[in-house]
């Protein structure tokens, strides 16, 4: 089972991602964070296989968190999951260490497909 950390300030989105991943039987959600600082703490403590990362958090920007985690040497797969879908922001996310960038809204099927592809 791949260990997953969900970082998103929306309880609705955390619940949706959690349910979609658990239903596959291939992913175990080991933590959920509603803020960037909490996300960094949990990511460095648990070193999950995958992090789903929102881009606009109450205290931080997701891309900055990805940069920080990569600078710390974290090798987890990171998929950015955000409503912010501008071409330049998606490119910035990818070029700063995110393995994929999924723009909200999306179905559970699309989310799982994109995450499965990261481990294929």
């Amino acid at each position, binding site marked *: 089972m791949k260990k997953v950390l969900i970082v998103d300030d929306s309880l609705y*989105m955390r619940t949706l991602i959690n349910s979609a991943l658990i239903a596959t039987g291939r992913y175990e959600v080991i933590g959920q964070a509603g803020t960037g600082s909490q996300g960094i703490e949990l990511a460095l403590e648990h070193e999950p296989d995958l992090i789903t990362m929102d881009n*606009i958090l109450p205290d931080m920007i997701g891309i900055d968190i990805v940069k920080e985690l990569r600078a710390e040497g974290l090798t987890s797969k990171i998929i950015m999951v955000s*409503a912010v879908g*501008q071409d330049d922001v998606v490119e910035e996310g990818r070029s700063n260490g995110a393995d994929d960038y999924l*723009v909200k809204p999306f179905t559970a099927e699309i989310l799982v497909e994109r995450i499965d592809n990261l481990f294929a």
Partner: protein
Amino acid sequence: MLELNPKEVELAREIISHGLVKAAESLSFFMNETITLQEFDQEKHLCTPPPEINKKDQTNIQLLITKVIGELNGVCCLIFSEEEANQLRQSALPPEILNSPEMMAEMSDGILLEVDNIISASVITQFSNILKVKIHGGVPALRKVNYAELEEYIHHEISNELYLISFKTSFKSSHVSFAPEFVWLFDNSFIQNIKNLATKQEEGTN
């Protein structure tokens, strides 16, 4: 105040319509049905504020507010009546949440905030890509207000933030009773960026 010439008004109408269509697509996702827009008429809607909101008889209006942050200064208001908000919850939330009073207590406002976050971002993404400006939406806020408070909020925003341009649309669904409204307010930066794009397009064609 900067003013748009007829060509620029047409360009603004195209950009705004493009953004609002994306918003309708996002709302369709949550409502599980095709949501369309009231026809966008620039003569009525691309004007100095304030726009008129069609919820005068409502008391528990769900006002969702997202600030536009970055190279454009503005705010958008997604406005649901209590009944419309309940229809959205029923369509967007899975049965395990709808059937759990504890989870509903936690999610009832959360789903509205997330829908607002995604719908406003759909529009902001289009404006950003077309106008080539770096903008994003802030963390959304929810206020439950009556009509007078709603009007007061919009007037307050207009006078405090010097918003000079507004546009409004209503979403339409097969349900007669579902017609949330979507109001956008911008300062002069929006007009200036429309003018800049119009100039670039004109230079490109000459």
